[in-house]
C-alpha cells in the first residue's frame, strides 16, 4: 500500500505535448479514477505511472521513492489492460503465475498463491483452461488475478471493462469495488465511462485535452462541477445548459434565462458590475420537477414538450426552452400519461449552477433561498 504523487507531470511526443503538467496526490489505499473523453491523456498518464511511457517532465513518486527513472518491474505496480493481455498459449494457472515465474518464486509457493487468488476470483475450476476457452468476464478476472497475485503496492487499470457487454460490465464493476475494499491496495483506474467513475471512485479526476479539469469525490463533482466541461461530462443524461445573463433590477439580482423565466440570486453574492454578464445556467435533469415543491426557493420555467421516454420507474422528458433542448428526469410512480401535459418545470434554488459563458468556469453566485 503506497501513496502516489504526480508533480508537474508532462508528456510530449516529439513537439506535441499531450499531457500538460499534471499535479495529483493519491493517498494510500485510495481508489482514484481518471476519466475523460478519448484523447484526453488519461491513459498516457496511467502508462507513465506504470513506466510504459517515459515521463517528459515532472516528478513521479510511489511510496517515498521517486520512480521517474526506475524500470516498470521495479516500481512494484501491477496493471490490468483493456484487452486483458492474456498469453494465449498458457493456461489460466500459468497466466496468473507468469509474473511470479519471471521473478523466480519457488514452485510450491507459486502454486499456493495461484490457488489463493483463484479462490478469491472464483477461478479454481478454470485453472487448466486456455484463455480462448473463457468468456469475456472470466478473462477479465484472470487478468485481475495476474495483477493481484503479485501483491503490488499500486494497481493500475486501463479501461478494464470496455470490452465487456453492458450487463457483465455492471457485475465486474461491483467485483472490482469489492476487491478493492478487501485488499485495500491503492488503485488508479482509467475509464471514459462516467458511470464507472462515479460508482468506483473515492475521488474522480476529470481530464480534458491533457489537463485536469477537476478533482473531487463523485458527489462533489456531481453537485459542484468546476466548469461546464465537468458539468456536462459527469451525470447521465448530462446537465442541461441554458444561456442567460445577470440582471440587477432594483438592487435585486437574478439570472435571466429569457422567455420570461428568471432565477433570483442572493444580493450579497452579486456585485453591481455583474449586471449584463453572459452566463450559462446549469440544471441537472434529476433536479427538474414538473410539480412545484413545498417551501420557498422554487423557480418556475416554461417549456415546449417534445417527447416522453418512459424508463419504468422514471421517465425522460425531452423539451425545448426557447431554442435550447433540455432533458428532464422525473419519477413516474407507475404513470406516465400525465407527463404529456407538462408545460413548465420547477427547480429549487440550491440545485441551480451558474457558469461564465466565456470561460465556462463555475461562478459563485448564490441562488436566493
Amino acid at each position, binding site marked *: 500500500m503506497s501513496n502516489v504523487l504526480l508533480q508537474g507531470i508532462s508528456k510530449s511526443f516529439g513537439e506535441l505535448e499531450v499531457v500538460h503538467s499534471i499535479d495529483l496526490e493519491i493517498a494510500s489505499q485510495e481508489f482514484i479514477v481518471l476519466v475523460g473523453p478519448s484523447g484526453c491523456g488519461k491513459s498516457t498518464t496511467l502508462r507513465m505511472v*506504470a*513506466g*510504459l511511457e517515459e515521463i517528459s517532465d515532472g516528478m513521479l513518486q510511489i511510496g517515498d521513492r521517486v520512480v521517474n527513472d526506475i524500470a*516498470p*518491474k*521495479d516500481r512494484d*505496480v*501491477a*496493471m490490468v*489492460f*483493456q*484487452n486483458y*493481455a492474456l*498469453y*494465449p*498459449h*498458457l493456461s489460466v494457472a500459468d497466466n496468473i503465475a*507468469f*509474473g511470479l515465474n*519471471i*521473478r523466480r518464486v519457488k514452485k510450491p509457493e507459486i502454486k499456493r498463491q495461484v490457488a489463493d487468488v483463484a479462490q478469491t476470483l472464483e477461478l479454481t475450476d478454470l485453472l487448466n483452461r486456455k484463455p480462448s476457452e473463457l468468456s469475456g468476464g472470466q478473462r477479465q478476472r484472470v487478468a485481475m488475478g*495476474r495483477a493481484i497475485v*503479485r501483491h503490488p503496492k499500486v494497481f493500475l487499470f486501463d479501461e478494464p471493462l470496455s470490452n465487456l457487454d453492458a450487463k457483465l460490465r455492471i457485475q465486474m464493476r461491483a467485483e472490482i469495488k469489492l476487491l478493492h475494499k478487501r485488499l485495500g491496495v491503492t488503485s488508479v483506474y482509467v475509464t471514459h465511462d462516467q458511470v464507472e467513475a462515479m460508482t468506483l471512485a473515492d475521488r474522480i479526476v476529470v481530464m480534458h485535452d491533457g489537463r485536469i479539469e477537476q478533482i473531487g469525490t463523485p458527489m462533489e463533482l456531481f453537485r459542484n462541477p468546476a466548469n461546464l466541461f465537468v458539468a456536462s461530462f459527469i451525470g447521465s443524461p448530462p446537465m442541461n445548459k441554458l444561456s442567460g445573463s445577470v440582471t440587477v433590477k432594483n438592487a435585486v439580482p437574478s439570472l435571466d434565462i429569457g422567455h420570461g423565466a428568471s432565477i433570483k440570486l442572493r444580493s450579497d453574492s452579486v456585485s453591481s458590475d455583474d449586471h449584463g454578464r453572459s452566463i450559462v445556467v446549469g440544471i441537472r435533469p434529476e433536479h427538474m420537477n414538473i410539480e412545484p415543491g413545498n417551501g420557498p426557493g422554487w423557480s418556475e420555467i416554461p417549456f415546449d414538450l417534445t417527447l416522453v421516454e418512459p424508463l419504468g420507474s422514471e421517465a425522460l422528458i425531452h423539451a425545448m426552452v426557447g431554442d435550447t433542448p433540455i432533458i428532464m428526469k422525473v419519477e413516474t410512480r407507475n404513470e406516465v400519461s400525465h407527463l404529456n401535459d407538462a408545460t413548465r418545470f420547477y427547480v429549487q434554488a440550491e440545485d441551480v449552477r451558474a457558469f461564465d459563458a466565456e470561460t465556462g468556469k463555475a461562478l459563485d453566485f448564490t441562488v436566493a433561498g
Partner: protein
Amino acid sequence: MKDKLIWLNKHFRREWQIYVMLLPVIIWFIVFLYKPMYGLQIAFKDYSIFRGIAGSPWAGFEHFYTLLDSDQFLRAVKNTFVISGLSLIFGFPVPIILALMFNEILHQGFKKTAQTIVYLPHFISTVIIAGIVITAFSPSSGVVNLLLSKLGIEPIYFLTKPEWFRPIFIGSGIWQEAGFSSIVFLAAIAGVSPTLYESAVVDGASRWQMIWKITLPAIMPTIIIMLIIRIGNLLEVGFELVILLYQPATYETSDIINTFIYRQGLQGGQYDLAAAAGLFNAVVAFVLVITANMIAKRYSKTSLW
C-alpha cells in the same frame, strides 16, 4: 432437381465474373499438372519415342525393380534425404532466429539496411549464386582459400571433395534464402499484440524472457505450418544449384534423385526409367506431407488441412 437447375442458371448469370476470374487457375492446373499426369504411365511402360505413349507396351513394375537394384539410384535417394535433412536441421531455424533478431533492432534505419542486405541474395539467379560460390571457393583466387593461406593452411579444392559438397551446398542455400524466408516469421511477430509485451514488462520480464515466453509461442503455429510445408518439399532439393555445383568427383555425396532423373532421362534418353524415379519421388513426398500434417495435428492443433 429442376429447381436446382434454375437456381444454378440464375447463380451463373449473376456471378459469372467470379468464375471467369477463377478460370486461369483452373486452366493452369489442367495444362501444367493434370495433363502431364497422362505421361506418368511411361513409368509402367517400355517406352519408345517412336511408338508414342499409347503405343508402347506395358512393362509393369520392371523399372521400379531396376531402380531399387541400382546402386546409383539408392545413393541418390540417400543423398537427397541426407542433404534435405541436414538443411532442414541447420537451415530451418535460421530464418526464425533472423526474424527474432530483426524484431529486437530498435533503430529503424539500421533495421531496414540489415533486412535489405539479407533479402538481396534471394533475388539473384541461381546461376549467379553458383558462380559466386565457385569463385569464392576457387583454390587459386577464391576468397576462402586466400583467408586460409593467411592462416598458413594449404589451399583446399573444396568443390572437388565429396566431404565438402554438403556444407557448401547447405551453407549457400541458407545464405540465399534465410533472409527472405524470415519475412513470414516477421509478419507473424508483427501480429502479436503489443500489450502482451507491455504486460510482461510490468511483470518484470527481460527481453530474453519475452522472446522465449511470448514471441516464440505466439509464432509457433506459423513455425509449424512452415515446417510441414518444408517437410513436404523435403525431396525437392534445389536441383539447379546441385547441377551447377556438382561434378563426377562429388557424385558420391551430391547426386540426388532429381539430378539422377535429369542424367538418366534427358541426357541418357531412358524416359521410362526417369519417369519411374520421378513417380517414386512424388509418392514419397506425398506420404511425407500427410505424415507431417498428421503429426502436427495431433501435437499442436495446427495443420495445413
